[in-house]
Each structure stands twice: as C-alpha cells, then as structure tokens.
C-alpha cells in the first residue's frame, strides 16, 4: 500500500468520525466518537512523523479532556429523551453556513502560494522529543513558563466555580 492511499483512508475515517460527533443524538455516543476522532488525528500525526505530538494528543485529549467530559456527562445524567431538539430551519441554515465557510476557506487557500519545497529537507526528525524539548526550553521557554500560570489560574477558577455556595439564588 502506498502512503497516499493510507493518508486518504485515514483522512476519510477522521472526517467520518467527526461527522458522527455532530450527528449522533446521544451525548455519550458523541463523546466516544470524539475520542475516535482524536485517535484518527493522532494517526495522521504519526504519518507525518510528529511522534511526540501524537502521543501527547492521545494522553491530553483522549486521556484527560475527554474523560473530564464523560465524567461531567455521567454526573449530570443526561438522557436521550431530554436532549434538546433543534428546529429544521435552523439545521438547514447551519449546514448552509458551514458549507459557505468551507467554500470561503478553500477559495482563500487555493490561491496561496506554498513557497518552500519539502524535498529540501531530507532529515525529517524535527518531531522527535529531543528536538522539540530543546526548542521548548530555549527559544520558547518564556511562553512555557507563562502557560503554567495559565494552568494555575484555570485550576483555581475551576475549584472556585464548582464550590457549592452558601446561599443559592432562586
């Protein structure tokens, strides 16, 4: 099998599972399809030799964020029967808007000129841990440290929000 065929099959599976996220009625099924989409995107990363990003994508997205979503879904105990319905007119309008967005993006990207040829780069190991770590701790060390502040802010915010208040507003 050629790489072209593998990439096409993986791309089709990615789009299919992403469509099922939007189309499936049950919220839990939607979450599971999103996990499948993340695995497909990770396989695309592996195909592009971005191994570190592929593993981190599985750990962070499929492992942490999606478990959090699933946990909240189970906690709220949402059923299929009280899943809110959307009117037919809004559905048609949304699909038209999405199609228009896709058309505009493709039309804008179509005329973009890709400057460098990939054949210039023959040693394609920039996606490995050693190279990424070196870059992260030299050139991008300040954003890396600032992102830890963001994490602390998010953690404190989540705890503050989820804490049950003494008096509830009726």
């Amino acid at each position, binding site marked *: 099998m050629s790489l*072209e065929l593998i990439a096409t099959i993986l791309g089709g599976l990615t*789009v299919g599972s992403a469509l099922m996220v939007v189309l499936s009625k049950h919220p839990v099924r939607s*979450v599971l399809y999103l996990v499948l989409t993340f695995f497909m995107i990770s396989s695309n990363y592996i195909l592009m030799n*971005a191994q570190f*990003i592929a593993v981190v994508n599985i750990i962070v997205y499929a492992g942490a964020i999606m478990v959090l*979503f699933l946990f909240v879904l189970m906690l709220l105990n949402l059923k299929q029967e009280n899943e809110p319905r959307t009117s037919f007119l809004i559905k048609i309008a949304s699909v038209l808007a*999405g199609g228009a967005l896709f058309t505009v993006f493709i039309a804008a*990207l179509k005329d973009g000129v890709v400057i460098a040829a990939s054949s210039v780069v023959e040693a394609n190991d*920039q996606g490995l841990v050693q190279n990424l770590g070196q870059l992260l701790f030299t050139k991008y060390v300040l954003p890396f440290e600032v992102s830890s502040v963001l994490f602390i802010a998010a953690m404190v915010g989540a705890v503050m929000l989820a804490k*049950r208040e003494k008096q509830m507003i009726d």
Partner: protein
Amino acid sequence: MTLAGIFQSGVSIQFYMVLATLLFSIGAVGVLVRRNAIILLMCIELMLNSVNLLLVAFSTYFGKADGQIFVFFIMVVAAAEATVGLSILVMAYRNLRTTDVGLFNKLKG
C-alpha cells in the same frame, strides 16, 4: 519507504489543508446545530484540533519544529478552557437543571 517521507511520496500539503478545513467546518456546523452545551464545548475542541492538524502538517512540510511547539501551547489552552467551561456548565446545571443553551436566558431581563 519511510514514514518521514510522506510529503515526498505524493501526498500534497493541499490534502491536509482540505482535511483541516473540512474538520473545522464540521466543528462550526456542530456549534450551530446542537443545543446541548457539553456538545458545543466538544465541537470547539474539534475545531482546535483541526487547527493543530494543519500546524503539524505545515511544520513537517517546511521541516521546522516551531509549528509543533505551537500545537503544544494550543493543547495547554484547550485543557484550561475545557476545565473552566465544564465547571461553569456544572454550576449552570445546578441552578437551572438543564444544559440547553436556548434556556440560558436569565440575563435577558
């Protein structure tokens, strides 16, 4: 045939541009169509991931690792956003007993 040579073996960068745009559009349609707030947050994650895919594709294509560092930071922001968004959602559910975004209209007056 090595995995590193995907862009030398006939797969064009345009393929990944179309794929990422398609995923982004599906996420945008999901935000517009669905009314469950949790699914809305999931569709936003899908849109963020489509951008990640395009960044990694260009990073591999140009042979520069900077795009993959940006993917790393997008993941950090997405994780923080998901935690805060979900805790706001749990708070709203506690007060309103629903996750339907059409019913979050207490501020309307």
